[in-house]
């Protein structure tokens, strides 16, 4: 890294006529970028939030939501007439391995159900029928009810009208961790882009460092460019780390080319660099920019499909959600990584990010407060 021509540093103060040192056109940019990278490297918080935190988050969520075969559903049968018969029907059914049946008195069964110990309570009634107590809001409860019902009906002699057969599938690519990692990538690019650019700028403004820089012949464009470029360097490391984690620990399959993924990441990083620049273009204090940043990022954390699919939101707001830059980035990364969608087919998403980035950057240049 020596864009400037450094001269040999012999101590010759007695000889003041040393040849002049000359700087080329890009010396300022090079030094600004280098200084920025040094500062980032020396700031332990940056290393943690940018690199370690996303990895911990991905690892934690990946382990919590790892794929495991559905365990045996705990089911309680209320003791009384018919309890014995129901239990033996269940034990003799072909699906008996998927239940863990206990006979309990009414109070104990209900209490266990309430506390989540049982997914389903079966209460034989006087007419020889059964009453299922289940919670339609708990997926495992719904599952237990239908499984148990099937097993009991079949054991009691119900015939299947349609012949069915089953093939099981648990392919990498359709698991939660596969959904999660591209989302985390996108969110991380947003967070570090906004904070990396916005926070740094307001800090420098507060320190009057921006004013001091403007007092030199430094090209203002070079300064902003260096700030954005530092994001690109970090972006490559961020993406690399998360993808390696996904591939090594969660056996994630990356279908898209690394080139495409890096390019999408670059566009995303620059886009959020621009949004960060705009957010920080006027703020004088760290406190005020922190609030603004959170205000800008909050909707995207919620709506842009980081942790769960945005398809869950009502159809009316879908166009709005798709216009958010993080949605575009997440969708682009997800389809590229998981489905191998080629770059050319990503143009609507690239357009969304590009527009956000360029418009923000231009507005920021217009409103930017250097002093």
């Amino acid at each position: 890294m020596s864009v400037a021509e450094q001269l040999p540093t012999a101590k010759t103060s007695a000889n003041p006529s040393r040849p002049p040192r000359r700087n080329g056109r890009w010396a300022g940019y090079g030094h600004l970028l280098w200084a920025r990278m040094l500062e980032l490297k020396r700031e332990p918080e940056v290393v943690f939030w940018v690199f370690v935190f996303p990895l911990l988050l991905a690892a934690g969520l990946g382990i919590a939501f790892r794929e495991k075969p559905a365990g045996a559903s705990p089911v309680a049968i209320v003791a009384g007439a018919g309890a014995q018969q129901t239990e033996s029907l269940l034990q003799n059914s072909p699906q008996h391995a998927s239940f863990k049946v206990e006979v309990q008195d009414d109070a104990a069964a209900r209490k266990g159900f309430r506390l989540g110990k049982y997914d389903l309570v079966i209460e034989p009634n006087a007419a020889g029928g059964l009453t299922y107590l289940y919670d339609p809001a708990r997926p495992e409860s719904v599952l237990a009810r239908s499984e148990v019902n099937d097993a009991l009906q079949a054991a009691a002699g119900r015939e299947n009208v349609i012949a069915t057969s089953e093939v099981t599938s648990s392919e990498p690519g359709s698991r939660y961790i596969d959904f999660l990692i591209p989302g985390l990538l996108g969110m991380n690019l947003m967070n570090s882009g906004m904070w990396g650019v916005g926070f740094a700028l307001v800090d420098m403004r507060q320190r009057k460092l921006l004013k001091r820089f403007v007092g030199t012949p430094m090209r203002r464009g070079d300064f902003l460019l260096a700030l954005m470029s530092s994001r690109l360097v970090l972006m490559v490391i961020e993406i690399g780390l998360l993808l390696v984690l996904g591939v090594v620990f969660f056996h994630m399959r990356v279908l898209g080319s690394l080139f495409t993924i890096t390019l999408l990441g670059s566009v995303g990083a620059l886009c959020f660099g621009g949004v960060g620049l705009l957010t920080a273009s006027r703020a004088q204090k760290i406190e005020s920019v922190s609030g603004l940043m959170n205000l800008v990022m909050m909707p995207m954390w919620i709506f842009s499909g980081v942790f769960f699919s945005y398809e869950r939101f009502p159809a009316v707001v879908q166009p709005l959600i798709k216009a958010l830059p993080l949605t575009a980035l997440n969708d682009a990364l997800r389809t590229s990584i998981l489905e191998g969608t080629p770059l050319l087919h990503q143009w609507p998403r690239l357009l969304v990010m590009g527009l956000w980035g360029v418009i923000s950057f231009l507005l920021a240049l217009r409103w930017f407060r250097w002093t």
Partner: protein
Amino acid sequence: MGIAVQCRDLRKTYQGKVEAVRGLNLEIQTGECFGLLGPNGAGKTTTIEILEGLLEPTSGQVSILGHSWSQNPREMREWLGISLQETRLSEKLSVRETVDLFASFYREPRSTDEVLEEMQLTEKADAWVGKLSGGQRQRLAVATALVCNPKILFLDEPTTGLDPQSRRQLWDIIREFQRNGGTVLLTTHYMDEAERLCDRLAIVDHGQIIAEGSPADLIERLGGHHVVEFAVSSNGNGRADPALWRALPGVESVLEADGMMALSVKEPHLTIPALLDAVEKQGSQLEHLSTRQASLEDVFVRLTGRHLREE
């Protein structure tokens, strides 16, 4: 000798209300060390930042070595070394990295090592800025200004908050720069600094220059040569009328502060005997009497009726 810095009828009004600078005229010759002396809030910083091209004046003209900020600001910045009031440089960069960074903005900067040596920062070259003492930070701030090999050095309160030794070090550096043909404009609210360092100075108050000249000239013109300070005990006669003291021979002005009378005097050997007579005639007792050379402080007090350090 040409004119290094010139401004005419400079005005700056913040938000249409606060008039920080109200019609200020300056002319600084090349090779001169010029000081803007005034209390806090007098408009010194606003003035110097307008001259540095960092603030837009509300009205008035500025010219630096014959160029105006609207013509060729980038070229002009090559000539100026600036140290702002309280710039906090990046704490996680080393001294050398900081100076190198600033050097990289200029076409033909000086060697970083040479500047560090001059500023006695060689030992600290690899220390992070965050670990420096106040004096070292201030020297580093001046180093970032000197590394560009400037024609004019702008220093805004360069020694505020420094210990006496660090102040003296900075004064030496400024003198050295001036000896090599540089022009210096500095602001300060220390009289001794202005008196020792500046060839000429302007006293600024409420956004206007109220007096201008060499320190000796200002003292002679406005401070009187000597100051006679005394206190009398009043024996029930009530307080003596200042007019009584004003009427003594050789007295140019009278000021009362903290129970002491201060007379600006041209010839103390004429005034003091007359003063003693007057005190005796009044039936009072002299409780204190001293004479000293007049200073810039006296000039300022005489001009504004306030002390420099008062808010």
